[in-house]
């Protein structure tokens, strides 16, 4: 798994690629925690290049969202495709998160 971050207006885009599973979830979690620690409270997670996400990866997303909420921040999900989109639907993340079809739409919503 590889993670790239970049500022886009008020938001910070986190572009993950590869697989987010039990093996890679810890480094995924620490990358997001570092951003929150730096005061980046509006995060957009671009899932376009993520091939697979397991329940371990889903838990990291939930924990990050909870942490941001406590600091009046927000986490938006964008660009989920194929298997990743299916897992998000199965797990019911659609009711908990704002999931956007494209990165542009997510950035617009982020303000």
């Amino acid at each position, binding site marked *: 798994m590889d993670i790239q971050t970049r500022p886009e207006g008020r938001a910070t885009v986190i572009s993950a690629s590869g697989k987010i599973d039990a093996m890679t979830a810890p480094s995924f979690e620490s990358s997001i925690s570092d951003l929150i620690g730096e005061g980046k409270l509006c995060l957009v997670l671009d899932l376009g290049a993520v091939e*697979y996400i*397991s329940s371990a990866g889903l838990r990291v997303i939930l924990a990050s969202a909870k942490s941001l909420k406590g600091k009046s921040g927000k986490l938006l999900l964008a660009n989920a495709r194929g*298997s990743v989109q*299916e897992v998000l639907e*199965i*797990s019911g993340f659609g009711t908990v998160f704002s999931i956007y079809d494209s990165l542009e739409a997510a950035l617009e919503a982020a303000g």
Partner: protein
Amino acid sequence: MAKKPSNLIYGVDEAPCFYELIILGLEHISVMTLAFVFPVVIVQESGGNMSQAAAMVQMSMIAGGLGTILQSLKKGPIGSGYLCPQVCGPSFLSASILAGKTAGLGAVFAGTFFGAFFEALFSRVVKRLRQFFPPEVTGTVVAMVGITVIPFAMPRFLGLNETDPTIKAHDLIVAVATLSVICAATIWGKKKLRLYNIIIGMVTGYFLSYVLGLFTPEQTEKFLSAGYFALPVPVFHEWHINWGLILPFVVASLCSSLKTIGDLVTCQKINDADWNRMDMDSVSGGMLADAASAMGSGLLGGMGQSTSSSNVALSLATGATSRRIAWSVGGLLFVLAFLPKFAAIFVIMPAPVIGATLVFAVSFMIVVGLQIITSRMLDARKMLVVGISIILGLSVDMVPGVYAGVPGWIQPVFSSSLSLATISVVILNIIFRIGVASKKTLILKPDVASGQSIYEFMDTCGREWGARPEIIDRATRIVTEFFETCVVSRLTENDIQMEIAFDEFNLDMVITYDGRPLDFSAEKPTAEELLADDAAVTRLSAEIIRRTADCMSCEEKAGKAVLRFHLDH
């Protein structure tokens, strides 16, 4: 029921109105006219005269019309249920010329009948041979069907001929204008314009050909001298049955059968947005219709019939695949056999107009073939099956005369790029299957790091078996979710064995280990539960597995947990 793709205006079960049926039928016939050159060539090579050639063309039209209607039948043992017109099959050309030169037209008709009889028999057993026609085989045939037409299309497009191999400016102008109009109508045209794209392009091409003087005096004379009505009279020849000459027809029929499979697979794919595998009942019925058409042609004194790839491509290009168009095409072919003047309009079609139409239709055909090939995961052996076959096929046209020394009886195989590629892809697929196990086992240590081997293992299995990538993705998700949960929840401290088995319809996995099974009865956790309780992640895993598998079971026997998962393929 098949899901109609959004790019179709009239799907297979829909009904265009009467005048649309007539125009669409004429569009198909205009594409079919090229194939009527073949009987003329056979008669000429056999030393026959013009009236024999005309009769053979007329009988081929009647047989083709009958075959096109039979092909569209949905119920009963005959017919595929699709619009898949029948034309004089190029696969039969070299066998027919060989028989005609050696023993006259009687041998051609006898050979055509018995060759087609072989296809009829083949159609009855093809369902049991499905494993020999996976998507990479049928996709290669479909792509090659398109590629085979290129040597016919490009010389006409550029105005080349055997005596003068230089590009003619006027021909090129007509071809480019015709193709441009067809493409513009297809890409930017609204429904009606797109439906008649070929006809609009052809009218443009005819007009420009007239203005630029491309009609030869012979073509003008042929059109003017053609009668308005004439009864088609079969010229019966005494059958000459020579088994040595019939064998090439059997080989030609085999090629024709495989091409028919490719055409019918294309029909299935373009009519079903959710298509994922061949419907063998439809293929079997379609092959029988193909055989009946060719047998009828042999009896009447026509040329061997085969499904027309160009017409299948045309139906995709126009977005009209209604089976009622097949009735229109069949009926119009019958009528045209009685109306020489009307038929002459198509017979004198300028070469660049034919070339432009073929380039347009064939481009769709080749891409559909490639889509079928890549609809499954490919490993090295499958890539070689496809790659070597395409190279062999292309060698026929790219290296002319390279197979000149091949014995006459097997010459039909090497006579066209399609035949050679088809035979090659079938044989290589059978040979390269040696050593591919239908069942595989993976042993996993119960630690997070060893979970990485799951991805590689599943990918290798998927490629070797040529499975659909989305099914392998789901199977990988089930195993990974289970494995992670197993490790986190410490369900076992010993090795975990996973066995996976595949056939074209099923993917089954059995996971066995010493320990307690995963609890699949718990409810899906809420977001709050997931954050508050680590055990809730296990429940989420169970939910993901439950929802991903099509069928599953879980049991515990003497301290051993056995989990079974099934996915439809």
